[in-house]
């Protein structure tokens, strides 16, 4: 059996990879000494893929919002009952999640990995959806949507995306709305399944104390041999660099205002490594300007304008990119002004080179720490893989990223017209 072994000496890690002739790729990251074993079966299909052209057809298909997530719920249903029961007989924990651009089915177990793994391979490939079970699921997902309506952290984030984007579907809740899911039926679910769950659009990953060869043999034996499917063309509305609206506010039962502000990135890299480089640079700028070791953080904290809930992050994908910073504040608008002031000063005077080097060192350590957790390895590996690179490429990014490039991104990403703010205020 043919598979590849790549050693990453600096990280003390090994990656095994295998390609099935259907186009499916499978990977193993071994963890000696760990009792938890983890496997994921993921498709490059998420909540933003609601308009597409099915390979071989000419017309555009438009499906209701929230259908990728709905399908995720329904795959657990099998002809002979709910597959969760089979996993729980084995004592393992099955789960699944849907994000903007992927749906991931997974389990973690400590014993009987092979049985669990073949169960995973089997149910993800064999949907059994009835109209009756679709109707039943609407009640459950309806409560999931309602739960998020009362979650201020979720609300403040999705409101920011609504402010940043005018048309792009990242502005829509992953689960859709009560109204959009009411329009989901069995046939549309199958249509999406058949379009996006072709092996060539999917990957498999196992993490833990498992034998790579036996994992790949099981994949080989379970996935039907077929030709790779041509890529699905996905249609995303065009967005300008400017934000849809620069401020959005909502009232919820919270004790203190919460805010997120963020920049809509105009950069859409084709090569994955560029995406990682850009993401790292945006994060470095945020840390330099308002991270825990910055002047601004110390000042805002001392003045009671931010507290330890404050944080910053960046999300960079092929189809969209944005940065986010936020937390709780009695006066979010003042935090924004103060940040913008420091930002403009940095654009004039440049960033702090020594601090930048220290932060890259910190990023490197934090990257290494991810390998303590099988869940985090899996999550990170799959996200980065669908950008067209490997998570291990971060090590290269930390070696190669230059202070000059970070300065460039400071000017390129953080433009006044790309800034929006979302605030949740107490009722």
């Amino acid at each position, binding site marked *: 059996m043919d598979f590849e072994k790549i050693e990453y000496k600096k*990280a003390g890690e090994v990656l095994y990879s295998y390609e099935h002739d259907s186009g499916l790729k499978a990977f193993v990251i071994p963890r000696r000494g760990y009792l938890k074993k983890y496997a994921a079966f993921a498709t490059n299909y998420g909540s933003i893929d609601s308009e597409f052209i099915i390979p071989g057809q000419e017309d555009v298909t438009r499906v209701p919002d929230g259908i990728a997530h709905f399908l995720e719920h329904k795959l657990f249903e099998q002809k002979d009952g709910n597959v969760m029961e089979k*996993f729980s007989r084995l*004592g393992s924990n099955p789960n699944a999640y849907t994000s903007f651009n992927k749906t991931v089915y997974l389990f973690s177990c400590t014993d009987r990995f092979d049985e669990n793994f073949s169960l995973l391979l089997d149910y993800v490939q064999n949907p059994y959806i009835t109209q009756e079970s679709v109707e039943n699921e609407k009640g459950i997902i309806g*409560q999931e949507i309602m739960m998020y309506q009362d979650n201020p952290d979720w609300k403040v984030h999705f409101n920011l995306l609504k402010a940043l984007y005018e048309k792009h579907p990242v502005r829509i809740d992953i689960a859709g709305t009560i109204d959009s899911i009411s329009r989901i039926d069995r046939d549309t679910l199958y249509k999406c399944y058949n379009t996006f769950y072709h092996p060539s659009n999917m990957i498999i990953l196992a993490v833990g104390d498992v034998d790579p060869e036996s994992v790949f043999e099981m994949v080989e034996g379970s996935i039907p041999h077929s030709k790779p499917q041509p890529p699905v063309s996905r249609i995303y509305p065009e967005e300008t660099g400017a934000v849809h609206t620069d401020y959005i506010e909502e009232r919820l039962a919270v004790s203190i205002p919460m805010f997120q502000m963020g920049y809509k990135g105009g950069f859409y890299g084709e090569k994955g490594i560029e995406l990682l480089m850009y993401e790292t640079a945006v994060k470095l700028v945020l840390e330099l300007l308002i991270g825990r070791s910055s002047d601004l953080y110390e000042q805002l904290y001392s003045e009671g304008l931010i507290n330890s809930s404050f944080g910053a992050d960046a999300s960079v994908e092929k189809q969209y990119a944005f940065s986010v910073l936020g937390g709780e504040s009695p006066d979010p608008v003042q935090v924004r002004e103060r940040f913008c002031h420091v930002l403009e000063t940095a654009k004039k005077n440049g960033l702090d080179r020594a601090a930048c080097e220290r932060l890259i060192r*910190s990023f490197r*350590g934090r990257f290494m720490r991810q390998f*303590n957790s099988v869940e985090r390895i899996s999550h990170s590996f799959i996200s980065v893989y669908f950008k067209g690179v490997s998570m291990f490429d971060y090590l290269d990014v930390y070696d190669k990223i230059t202070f000059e490039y970070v300065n460039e991104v400071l000017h390129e990403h953080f433009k006044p017209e790309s800034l929006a703010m979302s605030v949740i205020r107490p009722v």
Partner: protein
Amino acid sequence: METGFDAGRPVRVSSFNGIDIYRVNTDKFKTSSIHFFFQDNLTRENVTKNALLPAVMRRGSMSYPTQRDISKELESLYGASFDCGVTKKGERHIIHFYTEFLSKQYVPDGTDTFAAALSLLFDIIARPALVNGRFSDEYLAQEKDNLRIRIEGRVNDKMSYSVDRCMEEMCRNEPFEIYDYGFVEDLAGITADELTAHYRTMLETFPMQVYLVGSITDGEAEKVSELLSGLERGNTVALRNGFARKEKADIRHVTEEMNVTQGKLCLGCRTNTAPDSDDYPALMVYNGILGGGIHSKLFRNVREKASLAYYCYSMLEKFKGLMVISSGIDISNKQKALDIMEEQLDDMAKGNISDYEMEATVKSMETGIKSLTDSQMNIVDFYLSQTIAGTRDDFSTIMEKIRKVTKDDVKAAAQRIVRDTVYFLTAADSAGNQ
């Protein structure tokens, strides 16, 4: 070095002056960590001061006088982390400080990360930044404000708020009802002098547990003992757990109104099973069958069959002897959901437990317990909880005990469960209110 199931077994390095130092040696992680716990009894008098202490202490130490200095040091140490805070386990109030850092073998330039991280953590704990012998008024004022925000911010996460409130309502007039982060109205009266005196009380009299996890050498463990033997210690506080039995109760209904779209329904019960009793493993299995995952009665009946909720589970508060069933539902479905929850409790008390439920629960608990050994934080928490409960189990002995639990044991545990309080978080003026 041991790996696998036994990797997480702690060895006591030394014990003196009410300080116990444990080492958990394992090389499977990329990082190592150092944890300090100071334990107190949960009391109205101390709770707010205990919560303020780590908040003020994290602002700076003698060698790292500002938060910014601490952050810079952590960044230089390859993104090491440091955190501190308070938590309650039963009626104990625990102040914890920890640091986690890349182990030496993964550091490109040979930095002695253990020594550096220990020195930072110890500086924060034992050498706080004092002004004229007391905490800075400025830091104190700011952290009082942050703590007030934190206490008031309890309502922001409705799921955990509803479970906490249910337990507090069950335990009114018992110390357990005290919220971990204290009382807003007690903040104003705390002066810098008083908090500094309380700091000395903590450092001198609170029983202390220290855990060193990861690739720790003998020399490094000794270094920690040496450092701590320099601390001035007095007589240590005698601690209680707060376990209470309550055999009979009229069910109390508590409704709280808030601006919410989804109702949160909690049913709180007394377990009447002490954390150190031989019956405790049966209670764990009971909870697993009732609401501990996708195989459980609550998940299958409230979510899958009745389609009333996205989540429905039960959880134990081991030390105090409580169990809470929690679910997020449409407000108009309160009675329907409550009926199904109560049916499951009745079912369990009658001993209606299928082989599937029993088997899936025990296996899922086994997976859960083994998985704890893959996280440093979980290993430490497991062993700290053992010392609080007064038990001496490790991961394999607890598993053996769980495997021996029979359906009759579970039924007996079920019959000790007493329903106590129904708590409902609902929308203001909602039609579904009763």
